[in-house]
């Protein structure tokens, strides 16, 4: 009798898998694997160009140098240093955990700790928030369900876990089946209104798929920011000391 029950459960599971394919949570885990898991680069070094286009059509360009390190057992680490414009050159941003971020202000030679209430704030006037550029990965903060799929993409809907302090209540994510990375995200605020739309262009660098161009559009402000990555280097064996306050103060070349 017991064996029959087990056989029944197994058959039902196989049947479900056959009918429904992968679950939304499975797809989200694939995304996380690409972003911060074993399929992600161990570390990345890149130069970013950030073009901010305001609602009035004014354009502002910022250049940054960025380093990130993928820690499988804890939050990933990130460092960003501004290269231009002149008044923000050498301003640095260090992320060690969701609730441990530092901003270096070279004018005062001062490192300031940023509390997580700032995460929703715009990052240096762009349409990205500190959280958008903070630690990556979704599956620990969201529950996903599959909405639809075609030959090239899955569309999943992410609902924020009750205990999570992530800024977006809901995310509608279009995931490329080839790269297993998001290609489009609709980000909804706490009231359920569409706040931002992110469109991502992914490229294969070495053995890894990486987002190399992200356009973040703020639907409320009617502005958008294009973040492009160039000179990307992966798995360079970046030392841990890059992700310290000491390094944050160093002049960037």
């Amino acid at each position, binding site marked *: 009798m017991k064996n029959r029950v087990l056989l029944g459960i197994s058959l039902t599971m196989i049947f479900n898998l056959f009918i429904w394919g992968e679950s939304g949570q499975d797809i989200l885990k694939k995304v996380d694997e690409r972003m911060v898991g074993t399929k992600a680069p161990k570390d990345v070094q890149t130069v970013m160009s950030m073009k901010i286009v305001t609602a009035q059509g004014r354009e502002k360009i910022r250049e940054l140098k960025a380093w990130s390190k993928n820690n499988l057992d804890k939050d990933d680490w990130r460092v960003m240093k501004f290269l231009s414009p*002149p008044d923000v050159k050498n301003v640095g941003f260090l992320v060690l955990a969701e609730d441990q971020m530092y901003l270096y202000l070279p004018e005062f*030679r001062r490192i300031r700790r940023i509390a997580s209430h700032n995460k929703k704030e715009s990052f240096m006037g762009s349409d990205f928030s500190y959280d958008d550029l903070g630690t990556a990965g979704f599956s620990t903060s969201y529950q996903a369900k599959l909405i639809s799929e075609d030959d090239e993409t899955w569309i999943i809907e992410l609902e924020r876990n009750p205990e999570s302090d992530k800024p977006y209540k809901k995310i509608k994510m279009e995931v490329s089946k080839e790269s297993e990375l998001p290609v489009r995200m609709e980000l909804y605020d706490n009231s359920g209104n569409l706040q931002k739309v992110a469109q991502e262009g992914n490229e294969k660098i070495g053995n890894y798929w990486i987002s190399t161009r992200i356009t973040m559009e703020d639907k409320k402000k009617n502005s958008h920011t294009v973040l492009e990555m160039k000179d990307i280097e992966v798995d360079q064996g970046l030392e841990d000391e890059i992700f*310290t306050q*000491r390094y944050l103060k*160093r002049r960037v070349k």
Partner: protein
Amino acid sequence: MKKIFIFLVSWCFILSTLYSADIDFSGRIKLFSSVFLSKNLEGEYFAHEKGEFAFKRLETRLQLGGNLSDNISYSIRFDAFSQPDALFSSDTFPQSSILGTPTDAEPFETSLYEGYIKASDFLFKGLDLSVGKQRLQWGTADKVNVVDNLNPVDFANFFTFDPDYFAERRPQTALNLEYYLSEVAKLQFVWLLSRQHAPLPAGFRDMILSGSDVSQVYIDKDQPLVENTNLGIRFLTVLFNTDLALSYYKGNFHLPVLYGVSLKGAGGSDYYYKYPGKHVFGIELSGEIFSLGFWAEGAYVRPEKIKAFVDIPIVYGDQIQHIRQKYSLFEEGYFKYVLGFDYTLGVGNGIYLNAQYLHGFFDERDYSSEYEETFSYSSGMFFGEIENYVLARAEYKMLNQDLKIEFGGMVEFADDGTAVSFMPSLEYRVLDYLILQAGAFFVSGNEENTKFGLFKDDKLFFFTFKLNF
């Protein structure tokens, strides 16, 4: 000064070429103007008509930086400005504006604001050395760092009420060693090559001399001996996701302290000032609780034991002799502290709130009670007794952070009164390189018994133009 400037600029370019290193070149041009919005012809600090310029100043800043090798970098900043310390005139006190009169046109000065060389992994891995005139990081509070006794507060510019100079500190010539024990722990040792003195407003000495019975003012400064140099030690780490630092400073008060008066009868009195020594033991914390950012600094100040004196003349026969009465200058030890928090309210683009409770402003000390009685030093006056403050500000940014609206304020709680200072301002980034700022400073509250209440009739409007390149 001009020759030094040209020499240093040339030197940087030559070195950069020699070492094929890149060089950062940046700077700023800033025009700050302020106008009195009220008339005050009998003010203790300013005397002016309504609509009179309070301050007009052009500042230029030139910065050079580069790497001489992978581990060695340099940074130089030159400031050139029109009478940086000329808040008070040197002749007829009080006079609010030097540049307001054509006869004093273009009295520019230059200053080496900062100039140092930094060697990373100096001698061994993890040890960084920076030598030269530099701004040292000490303290975690927002501007009102009670533990920071290494960088004196710039009092020369404090009374301009230019927000850039509120509680701004001056770099010091120092040898700064930072040893990174781990990724989250650091030991810092700073050796300051001289006693430290906060720059005072021009005319400060005249202001003291303008007292009714003052005939001479003597300001004692320690001799430039090795034994009279200052030092600081600081240990930083992260515990339970909270940044923690412990520090010790051996040095001196940055502002002069009146420690002696020699009464001369009809001939006025001689006043004696000095910069007493002190030891400061500090603790700093910063972190967050439920996404609310917090910080705290505490400083236990142990001043040098000094006897203040009053020489009283007495007629003995046909001769005048002096009797010296002595008093302890300070209490044996006292605390200063600051507690602060910040939070962003989820309204619109987010309203940033920042508030701090401060016990002990930069110029305040805990005098002995007998000193207070004899020299009439109390809370509610500059260089007076310790009192309490609440500093707060709210910021709102719009138009992709190009427009910033700020409401800043400070409440002063003195023994016999309260004063509230307001500093609203509006900042607009016209271009990436061009910033316009306008704001006001005004005070309400008790005029007689508070420090900032004295400026009740000195309402100001200011306008700033900044060009960064």
